[in-house]
């Protein structure tokens, strides 16, 4: 082992390795900043270059790229409320409210400090863990993975908001949304309603952007001001660092969670941020302000997601099983370099593994350092009047969304889920609960079914005797207990004045939305009943759960006392109410829908240019010079991205009829 350590240290110390790693880090930072692009896009960009490179240098470059993506994706999450990648969705919950208070600098510096620290701690943990990783990973069978999925779902309790019924109903709707597509046990296609797009289910990117980014954009647009309410921007860099030093223990715990959960193949990285966010909510006793801009809500997921990136490397290199999309490309890159994943990497070729792990630590330091330098100018974006920023953000969100399957249907799904997100925000339905249900539905269902088959003793209850299951079950119960005790009342209800009594006035709208959700559950129920037993049982169960809680909620809204916390309507209690400059609720959404409708006719690229012109002239009321400049810059930027990634924009009717030159093709 000592030999392996020195071998790794010497290859890390070489200048060649350093320069290539810096290249990887820079590309990683750039693709990480752009929402929707992440490891997959970055690695696809770099892989043509690894041919003929010296293996350790190529490895350094690829690791550098992968390592820093969860560092720079924080920019979009904090500054714009757009989840930069699936690993930093939870950062939005508190990071964006901080930016709106003018504390973007504080949030960013705490986030980068956490990212740096999380990455290094993750590497330290992995250095020891790699030796025992194989047997340890092998103790996680289907039964343990099912319990882990339940553990993740228990976070719904902590993030349910003011009304537990809403939280559970939202979680159930999320489970149903996650079960769209092929059933794991039988391959039957559920709830596809003859749309080919739904065969693969709704992509996570589209779900995250629709639920979180669209409602924020729409909300900011109607308020007609910059993101940051008051410009305290220059300050807070030191404050952020101080925040982090005050919460080092939380940061260590979350980094540990991240590294371990990442290392277990099968759960996927997209729940780590939610689990650690939930963990922070459950354990932070002093003045919790979660959901309204608590810095600990930024530190927790940001410490975890960098550590997780290291964790996911382990199953990739030791078993050849990629834990995420970007790890799949990384694996492809390793094979092209000539390094075959397998047990030898924890044994005879341990030096390579240590080179990878420590490259990760060094890259994290580089990445966080560069981000610290870049942050002050980038953070100024939050002071730009939003009418100027909005078209760029809408285009960016669309670009990110259609990275999912590169189909116009991605954009249509984005509009639909965006509408759902807007309504959920309005009526105080917790969007994190829905997202957690959605992310964990396939895991929960698959592993439950597999665990029953692999543990047939006592009619399936045999799995409860496995020690791993017992430990995770105890953790789950503890998480539920703490979650219910410290439920965050303000989750997802930012900007609410808080008087439930007033919200009573629109209870029929609220009942209407609740019944619509119940209707969705009913639809899922009726679809489920057309399938075989194994294909039916999971969605039917989730639908029944959702239906019960929706109806209970509707009853309470109809007959309950007028001060009941279930009443909530941002259209009555929101801070935009009564201000004359406030626009209409749906105007931002209609602009987005217009863009997508245009794309369906003339293709995305042309529609995007027309959208910019129209928006800047009519909505922003910009001069022609300003309009043309921004439109030109934005279309050149998108063109450059599309060209480098060699992708086609979604086509419209015109493209189907005529053969146009690229990029209008």
């Amino acid at each position: 082992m000592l030999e392996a350590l020195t071998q790794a240290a010497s290859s890390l110390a070489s200048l060649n390795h350093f320069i290539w790693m810096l290249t990887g880090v820079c590309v990683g930072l750039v693709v990480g900043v752009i929402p929707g692009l992440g490891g997959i896009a970055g690695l696809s960009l770099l892989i043509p270059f690894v041919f003929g490179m010296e293996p350790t240098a190529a490895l350094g470059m690829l690791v550098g790229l992968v390592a820093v993506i969860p560092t720079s994706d924080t920019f979009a999450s904090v500054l714009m409320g757009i989840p930069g990648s699936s690993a930093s969705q939870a950062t939005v919950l508190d990071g964006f409210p901080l930016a709106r208070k003018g504390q973007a600098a504080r949030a960013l510096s705490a986030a980068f400090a956490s990212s740096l620290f999380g990455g290094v701690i993750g590497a330290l943990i992995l250095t020891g863990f790699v030796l025992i990783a194989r047997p340890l990973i092998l103790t996680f069978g289907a039964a343990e993975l099912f319990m882990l999925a339940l553990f993740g779902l228990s976070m719904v309790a902590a993030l349910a908001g003011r009304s537990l019924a809403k939280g559970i109903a939202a979680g159930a709707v999320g489970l149903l949304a996650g079960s769209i597509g092929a059933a794991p046990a039988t391959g039957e296609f559920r709830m596809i309603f003859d749309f080919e797009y739904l065969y693969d289910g709704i992509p996570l990117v589209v779900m995250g952007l629709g639920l979180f980014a669209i409602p924020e954009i729409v909300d900011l647009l109607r308020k007609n001001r910059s993101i940051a309410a008051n410009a305290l921007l220059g300050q807070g860099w030191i404050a952020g660092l101080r925040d982090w030093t005050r919460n080092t223990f939380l940061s260590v715990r979350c980094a540990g969670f991240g590294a371990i959960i990442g290392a277990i193949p099968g759960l996927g990285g997209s729940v780590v941020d939610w689990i650690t966010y939930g963990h922070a909510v459950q354990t932070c006793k002093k003045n919790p302000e979660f959901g309204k801009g608590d810095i600990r809500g930024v530190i927790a997921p940001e410490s975890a997601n960098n550590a997780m990136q290291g964790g996911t490397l382990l199953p990739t290199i030791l078993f050849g099983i990629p834990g995420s999309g970007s790890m799949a490309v990384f694996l492809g890159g390793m094979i092209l370099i000539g390094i075959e994943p397998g047990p030898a990497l924890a044994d005879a070729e341990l030096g390579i593994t240590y080179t990878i792990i420590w490259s990760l630590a060094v890259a994290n330091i580089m990445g966080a350092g560069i981000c610290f330098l870049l942050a002050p100018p980038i953070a100024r974006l939050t002071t730009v009047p939003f009418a100027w920023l909005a078209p760029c953000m809408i285009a960016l969100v669309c670009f990110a969304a259609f990275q999912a399957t590169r189909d116009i249907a991605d954009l249509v799904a984005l509009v639909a889920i965006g509408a759902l997100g807007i309504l959920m925000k309005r009526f105080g339905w917790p969007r994190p609960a829905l997202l957690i249900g959605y992310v964990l539905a396939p895991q929960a269902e698959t592993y439950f079914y597999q665990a029953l088959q692999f543990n047939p003793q006592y009619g399936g209850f045999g799995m409860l005797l496995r020690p791993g299951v017992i430990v995770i079950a105890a953790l789950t119960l503890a998480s539920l207990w703490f979650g219910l005790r410290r439920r965050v009342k303000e989750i997802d209800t930012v900007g609410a004045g808080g008087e439930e009594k007033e919200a009573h006035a629109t209870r029929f709208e609220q009942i209407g939305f609740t019944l619509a959700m119940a209707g969705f559950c009913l639809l899922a129920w009726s679809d489920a009943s057309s399938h075989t037993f194994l294909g039916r049982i999971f969605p039917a169960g989730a639908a029944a759960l959702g239906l019960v809680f929706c109806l209970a909620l509707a009853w309470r809204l109809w007959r309950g006392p007028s001060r009941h916390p279930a009443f909530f309507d941002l259209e009555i209690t929101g801070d935009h109410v009564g201000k004359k400059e406030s626009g209409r609720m749906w105007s931002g959404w209609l602009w987005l829908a217009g863009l997508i409708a245009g794309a369906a006719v003339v293709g995305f690229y042309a529609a995007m240019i027309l959208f910019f012109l129209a928006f800047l002239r009519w909505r922003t009321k910009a001069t022609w010079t300003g309009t043309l400049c921004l439109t030109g810059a934005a279309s050149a930027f998108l063109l450059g991205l599309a060209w480098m990634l060699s992708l086609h924009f979604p086509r419209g009717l015109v493209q189907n009829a005529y053969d146009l030159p690229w990029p209008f093709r």
Partner: protein
Amino acid sequence: MISRKRHDLYDAFASRLFGGIKRNLRRFCLAFGLTGLALFAQVASAEVSFAGKTVEWIVPFSAGGGSDTLARFNAPFFSKHLPGQPNVVVVNEPGGGSTKGSNLFEARAKPDGLTILITSGSTQFPYLLGDPRVRYEYANWKIVMASPTGGVVYTSPSTGVENAGDIANLKGKRLIYASQGATSLDLVPMLGFRLMGLDVQHVFGFKGRGGGRLAFERGETNIDYQTSSAYLKNVAPLVESGKAIPLFSWGSLDENGNLVRDPTFPDLPHFAEAYEMLTGEKPSGPDYDAWFGFFAAGFPAQKMVFLPKGTGDDIVEAWRQAIRDMLVDPEYLSARQAVLGKYEQVTDAAADALQRKGTQVSADLRKRVVDLIEREYGVKIKEK
């Protein structure tokens, strides 16, 4: 015009990215061929030239899978050997279990030699089973290259089997197999085990064979198979330490389309030999034909590269010549081992034969398999 511009931009991007690091930049330029060089390199004898053009290689899967890795490995070599050294870019069009990208190729690719498609067993199985999402027709396409693979079935010593010769001991044992689903490539082991009369419980819902291998290592399953490269790297160590016993390979096809032993595993019996060891008879009959049809699609003809329908013979020939040149390129040969293992990529008659074998199943065999899947595993396939 456009593609020319793209190429220049691409080089500009590369030089910016790589700054002063000349050594690798030169390699990069060599590998991709500069447009300028390519323009001068117009050889009089080559009638077809793709100089200054961009070839789009449609990969109907996400980045990172087997087909994607194969495409990214081959792309620079295609670029090097095609007349006029065009830029070859990989375009991922994932979705619908690879049916979406293949449908796009069928509907939109022009027969000018500038769009190619790679398909895998997961593209052929929905086609062979009559999945309603399939709107492509293999018979229309012109094959330029095929990449075979093999697979090895192994079991756990807990079944009482000590070596491949003990396979008869598996009779009557309760075996568990981690499957990706009845309509996936795991249809081949499903039909095979059934034909052999083994009592196998198929547990569905696995994502990729890697997950299945993990379940085997955890002791959740006791029979499994891996494709050749995964077997060599990840199962061979298990075999050495006595944790896995290889039983047989699926086999390989000779030039006449007969099942023979896999050249990578000459010591292991192939499927038909193992069948004979179990039952004392050579396999035959419609169930064997059904297994054989899907085996051919899933393994020997697993990865195929196509030009769209209507492509002229001169363009097809230009492509095949490029592949022939590539197959003897020493740089290709030295890089190949790591990515492809011992299997050779083939073109010309061998590829034609694989296209026929791997994409044709008679109507009654199809019905037989579709009925069987529905009857025994409760999986319905909507007829077109």
